[in-house]
């Protein structure tokens, strides 16, 4: 159980960033994962007054504020038209509607959780994160970085022409995934993002459709936990990538 000494609604990103430099302070997302932890938070920093709870669409990109919720992703018509429903598919089995009304995109992406459906689906797309101090960097680079005290401002999804398919294997509908898989066909290459390995999602690419599923399964490290063994996850990886490739018409 966590305790919180003080709560602040930051009035600027600079104020939030300054507060976040103290290791005992924490930025709040949906607070769903954070609340299950232990320890004492000196100041809980809330970004809810900074207008970061929207998804803005232009001709070139979607700009998803870090406080937009997973339910916003699920219901956004433009984003789901662009992804062929993959964005909604990736979040629809995350606990329930109430949970998805609270869980934020920023919390999911920033956490780089090993079980994350959200990181998995966006990693397959042409995505970037905007960090307050670190600027705009590719999501793939961000996914591999160590956590620091910067602030995730928004997720940027470029409208690069693509086809993408998302699927996951769950032991039970609203449980964490045993394995999560997003495969995209973009810029003449195939991109497979594999999450719930159960480590952070990672991305593999190939120009060749043939043998891609086997290549991904052979090169994505997996581990075992209560939901499944490493061998089972590797087997599922090959199956889900093959199915996705069939759906994309690549095989």
């Amino acid at each position, binding site marked *: 159980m*966590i*305790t*919180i*000494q*003080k*709560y602040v609604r930051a009035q600027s990103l600079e104020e939030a960033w300054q507060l976040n430099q103290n290791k005992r302070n924490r930025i*709040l997302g*949906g*607070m*769903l994962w954070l*609340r*299950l932890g232990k320890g004492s938070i000196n100041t*809980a920093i*809330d970004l*809810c007054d900074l207008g970061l709870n929207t998804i803005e669409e232009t001709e070139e990109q979607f700009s998803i504020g870090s406080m937009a919720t997973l*339910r916003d992703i699920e219901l956004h018509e433009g984003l789901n038209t662009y992804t062929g429903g993959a964005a909604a598919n990736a979040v*629809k*089995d995350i*606990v*329930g*509607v*109430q*949970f998805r*009304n*609270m869980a934020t995109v920023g919390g999911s992406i920033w956490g780089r959780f090993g079980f994350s459906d959200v990181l998995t689906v966006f990693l397959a797309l042409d995505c970037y994160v905007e960090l307050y101090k670190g600027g705009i960097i590719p999501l793939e680079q961000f996914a591999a970085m160590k956590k620091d005290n910067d602030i995730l401002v928004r997720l940027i999804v470029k409208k690069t022409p693509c086809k993408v398919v998302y699927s996951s294997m769950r032991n039970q*509908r*609203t449980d964490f995934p045993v394995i999560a898989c997003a495969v995209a066909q973009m810029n003449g290459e195939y991109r497979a993002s594999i999450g719930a390995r159960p480590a952070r999602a990672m991305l593999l690419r190939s120009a060749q459709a043939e043998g891609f599923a086997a290549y991904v399964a052979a090169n994505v490290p997996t581990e075992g936990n209560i939901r499944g063994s490493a061998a089972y996850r590797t087997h599922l990886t090959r199956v889900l990538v093959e199915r996705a490739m069939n759906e994309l018409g690549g095989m």
Partner: protein
Amino acid sequence: MEIKLKLNGKNIAASVEADTVLLDFLREKGCLSVKRGCDTSNCGLCTVLMDGKPILSCSTLAVRADGHEIHTLEGLQEEASDFVGFIADQGADQCGFCNPGFVMNTIALLRENPDPTDDEIRAFLAGNLCRCSGYDGQLRGIRNYLNSRKA
């Protein structure tokens, strides 16, 4: 910290600790339909509406309700009375413990989608766990209610 919110249609002000969760705050205010179940954001028992959207009060800080409108079942009894009888007729509220969460989320479902399919009902209520009935009773009750509206 001082907070101001609208609870079941009434403006209230209160002083809360920074880590008081909304569930405890609401129960202190007499909203005893809001119950603690899993306490891990998974069971939906503590569902309330914040600005019309269903959320989990066990995992929401009370200070985050500042400036917002909260509805609990106490404030929505008339709207709920339309369909809870149909659920009761199916014996779906067997022990009744999960019922307030189911009813609150069903209200949210029917406001968003007044004529859902069975799969849409299942999907929307997937975040509400029932320890005894097996869910078919709730589904039949809601389906019977929807059918009665069309008759």
